[in-house]
């Protein structure tokens, strides 16, 4: 008897519940906010360490971006899927375990299929575990939102991180090594260019990142409270 009534109830409920479109306005915002107005690096000023460390050249930076996007998207998804099961008292440990596992997978895959890149990035890929952006998204978003939304948030934050470090890497490689993706631009153009070794140092990244934050805040009018 009781099962019949619930079935009837659910049948009645179904047509009433209008499912949100796959890319509603709210969801588009989840995706686009971290790219600009709520950017993890330039606005939240998170994940600076890796933005300074890996951005000497574009190629390793690109690999690093892909690695971070992979880790952030999947950890967001996994944590969101089990958000109601995770005991509150040990949630940080659970989050860390998930992140660390994903990072280890990335690192092992890199070692197997792109060994030269692994030699360049090895240490930094391991440090994605401590990247505050990943941890921050899990704690602030995935723990309280549905899987699909968390997935979108992961993509948004991942790309928000990626485009900033790629921009920094573009200027650092261009000015510090005179090349783009190891393609010697100035040599090809026939311009004599003395590489600026300050750009190769972390100092160069600080300066470019500073300018980037300045420009972005000027455009968006963001002011820190």
């Amino acid at each position: 008897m009781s099962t019949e009534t619930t079935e009837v109830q659910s049948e009645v409920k179904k047509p009433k519940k209008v499912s949100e479109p796959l890319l509603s306005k709210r969801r588009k915002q989840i995706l686009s906010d971290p790219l600009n107005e709520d950017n993890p690096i330039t606005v939240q000023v998170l994940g600076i360490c890796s933005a300074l460390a890996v951005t000497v050249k574009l190629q390793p930076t690109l690999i690093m971006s892909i690695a971070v996007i992979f880790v952030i998207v999947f950890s967001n998804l996994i944590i969101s899927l089990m958000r109601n099961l995770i005991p509150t008292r040990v949630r940080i440990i659970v989050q860390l375990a998930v992140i660390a596992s994903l990072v280890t997978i990335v690192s092992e895959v890199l070692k197997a299929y792109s060994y030269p890149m692994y030699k360049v990035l090895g240490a930094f890929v391991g440090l994605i575990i401590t990247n505050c952006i990943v941890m921050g998204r899990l704690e602030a978003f995935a723990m309280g939102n549905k899987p699909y939304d968390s997935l979108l948030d992961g993509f948004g934050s991942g790309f928000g991180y990626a485009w900033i470090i790629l921009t920094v890497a573009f200027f650092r490689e261009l000015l510090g090594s005179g090349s783009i993706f190891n393609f010697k631009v100035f040599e090809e153009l026939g311009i004599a260019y003395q590489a600026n070794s300050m750009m190769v140092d972390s100092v160069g990244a600080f300066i470019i990142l500073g300018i980037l934050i300045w420009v972005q805040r000027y455009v968006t009018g963001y002011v820190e409270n």
Partner: protein
Amino acid sequence: MRQSNGYVIIFTAILTVVVGGAMALTSVALKPAQQKSIELDTKSQILSAVTDVSEMKNNEILTFYKEHISSLVVDVNGEEIDDAVAEKVNVNKQFRKLFKAQKQRREAAKLTQLAERTGDEEAKKEAETLIKSAEAIEEEALFPVFKYTEGEGDNVDAYIFPVYGNGLWNNIFGYIALENNLNVIKGVSFGHVGETPGLGARITNQDVKSRYNGKTIFSDAGELVSVTMVKGEGNPEDKLGPHKVDGMSGATLTANGVNQMLEAYLHYYLDYIDKKKSGEVQAAL
């Protein structure tokens, strides 16, 4: 929501098993591919000391290596060790042991100097024990030798020795290839773990490596002098002579590491080199 202790413990236990299982699975599944890429990396490094491999595809490198490289392992006295495979020798591990010996030798040199100055008998004895323990470490070490044959036949065109040392921030390593007279450098290849990009990391650049080509490691009197990288960049070639190469500006400490590395390892291979040389003289007679 506050869960019971039992729930927390069970949850973390399951999480540990799942995560641990996933990690073990990844490791096992990727191991063959990883070993292959490490092997490929080592082989292309060995080859890049004698030829340009940057244009070669992975398979080409492996077949080229098979056709042109033969290897053996020697000890510090230049005697061949039969039951060791050169490709399987972990140069990093060997270096870590040898580094201890290098430190002991330096310490011993200091003590001997002190003993000579003050006549301190105890310092002299201590120096002797240090040298003995350094010698014992060196006796046990394995030194791979790679022979490069350019064309057909058994004629060895170059001897390639692995070298290992400390740079400014972390380990540096590489291969030094000597022509078959075992004096003139045919080429070098260097790698590093964490030297400064654009400064010390330039030891991996072709233009820096090629500075070593054609330099000699023995003086005219036949003494091993090694090759050193000088401080500063842009020194004229005629001023440098046959035992010095132009430096890298802003990376003198990395260059010092390279110098120490080459000197130490050429001395380790000295007995083998001497034996080869005298053997060739006998063969010629």
